[in-house]
């Protein structure tokens, strides 16, 4: 069973992601901020991490850098959510080690398509 970690301080976004991905047979684990994300990522075996960038406690960029610094998380695809198609933010997140992005708002079909794009089937 493929597990996906979703990190976002908005419960409704986590819920939307969870419903869409659970419908495709993925197991979804939630975290409410970057620090919780790092802790949960260390405790489980995830095939993909989807994270927001603006979060309290620890932001998404810091979380991505911390995860990439650990060999255990090398190669795990990380997608970030971004509101505007802002080239600057994309460049920063990619430099931090993100794999790709998802532009908000997205619909469930877009989410599933992008998730399948980065996960080896």
């Amino acid at each position, binding site marked *: 069973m493929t597990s996906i970690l979703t990190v976002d301080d908005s419960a409704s976004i986590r819920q939307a992601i969870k419903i869409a991905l659970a419908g495709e047979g993925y197991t979804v684990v939630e975290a409410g901020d970057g620090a919780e994300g790092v802790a949960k990522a260390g405790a489980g075996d995830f095939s993909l991490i989807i994270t927001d960038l603006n979060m309290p406690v620890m932001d998404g960029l810091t979380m991505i850098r911390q995860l990439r610094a650990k060999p255990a998380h090398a*190669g795990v*695809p990380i997608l970030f959510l971004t509101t505007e198609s802002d080239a600057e933010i994309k*460049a920063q997140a*990619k430099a931090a080690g*993100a794999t790709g992005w998802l532009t908000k708002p997205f*619909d469930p079909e877009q989410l599933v398509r992008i998730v399948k*794009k*980065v*996960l080896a089937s």
Partner: protein
Amino acid sequence: MSLDDPAAIFRQEAQDLLEQIELNLLDLARRPSDRGLVDAVFRGLHTLKGSGAMFGFDALAAFTHHCEGAFDRVRKGEVAATPELVSAVLAAQDHMRALAEERDAPQAEGEALLAALHRAVDAAAGGSPAAPADAPAATTWRIRFRLPADALVNGTRPLPLLDELRDLGPCEVVALTDAIPPLEALAPTECHLGWEVTLVTEHPRSAIEDVFIFVIDDMTLEIEALGGEPEPESVPDAGPALAVVDAASESAVEGKAARGGDTVRVPAERLDELMDRVGELVIAQSRLKQVAASSAEPSLRAVSEEIERLAAELRDTMMVVRMVPIAQLFGRFRRLIHDLARETGKAIDFVTEGESTELDKTVIERLADPLVHMIRNAADHGLETPEQRLAAGKPAAGRVVLAARQAGAEVIITITDDGRGVDRDRVRAKAEENGLIAPGAVLSDNELLQLIFHPGFSTAQTITNLSGRGVGMDVVKRTIEGLRGAIEMTSEPGRGSQISLRIPLTLAIIDGLLVRVGTARYVIPLAAVEECVELSVEQDLRSTGRSLITLRDRLVPFIRLRELFRTGQAPDPHQKVVVVATGQERVGLVVDQILGDHQTVIKSLSSFHADVETFSGATILGDGGVALILDIAHLVAAGQRRDAELRATG
């Protein structure tokens, strides 16, 4: 609007999406077999549906879902995008706009629109199915790519990329191993392989690039079409009743590029707030200037001058921030012309020029309604039917040109048509019938044309659905003058008409001339001032009956502001006449003293004073006093009127 409120963000994005969908649909009306446009419309509808559902706009999502379903048949090439079908989707798109704003949009209306859409789709399916030639031929592509060195660590997996390419069409994949270093230098987490893929697909180059979307900026990617790139599809003839010429496509591209840059979206109210603050600052600064002028302290003067310079620069910057290209306004009229052409059965070439011309956003908002009215008039009354045009030796398609350009501190907007021109006889008959002029009155051609702007004037013999909805050119004129602009019309029988508007760039701050009448001070907008002359005592005495002065052999009527404002004091011995003009008309305003120029931050009058006609606003002076701003358009009209009355009575 809170930027953190997802529903508010969605509403804004929905408006942007709908605007884009509308533009694509209008293009589609002109190039019905452009697959790119069909796809773009479909994508827009799809995104709108998905986002709408995500943010709880269920009615919008459900309605859009049905439209998307109907339009899907166009996307699949089962039915052609007929003009009827495009119009049905346009109508549905208006309904979506209402739903996105959560306006009261009755469900029955939505159902009727969907029914119309389905009828249009069925009609299009029964008529001419999309030509099979529309399906693009498959092309063979050679794709060579190497991922960035850190791609594997960062989660990019080559296999799904290759799978995605395979989804586009049959593939042959060869791994490029030439860059693999010797074992001792090999970094195990880096990607050393490259790939060469030969792909046969009918998808365009952009579909291949999309596969690499997350890494395309950092990787090397060569995409080569073997046997040459497929030609973009030829543009077929436009629909029978509609042709839209896009002379401004160049500026449209420019606009798109500008939008792609680093921009920040700010609620409009914040800009207004900022403008208010800048206004307050300018007022405080002029107070400082007065204090400094009466002070012996040289350093105070230096600081005051520095602040004056900074405030002026800040004001200029603020003006620029509030400027928006007129393109967004012009864009709306393409839809209007499309609807007009369909309703009247006329063929209309609509050309826009100078779309990148910028105006204050408030001005643009207030120009929308008058322009709609004038364009309607041009298309509905101005242009003839195709038969009449052919009979008159003109091309069947009429032409309406909407142009904007900047001239100094004004923007000039012209609406030109090549229609039948204003029928002078009909104008005269109508004016006589309505008692605007005496039967047989001798009028210059210009005076005759001016009658069109008279309240209640309408020459259309039959009031169509389009024009004559109660607002006449008098309302247009009032609106334009409310913007401190001017309107003029020229017309040549049989050749067409032109209306030109002169609009000031901004409404918030103007250069004014400060004058004194009695003990009170007033501001005259400097742009309207032509000259200032002294009113000699003998001229003053001589002109008690008809108030006229001679200026370079020309008689100019004048108004004594002291009488108008009933100051009740003896006039200064050396009164001045400030000659002001709007368009061709001029009038002199007699004042006691000219105090000098004044940066005027306009404060509108309260709603209690909304019906005061002589003043257009007020401003706060450097010493904290208040000066009223004279409404020049009104005064000039009053002066001319009084002169005409005096002339008539003797």
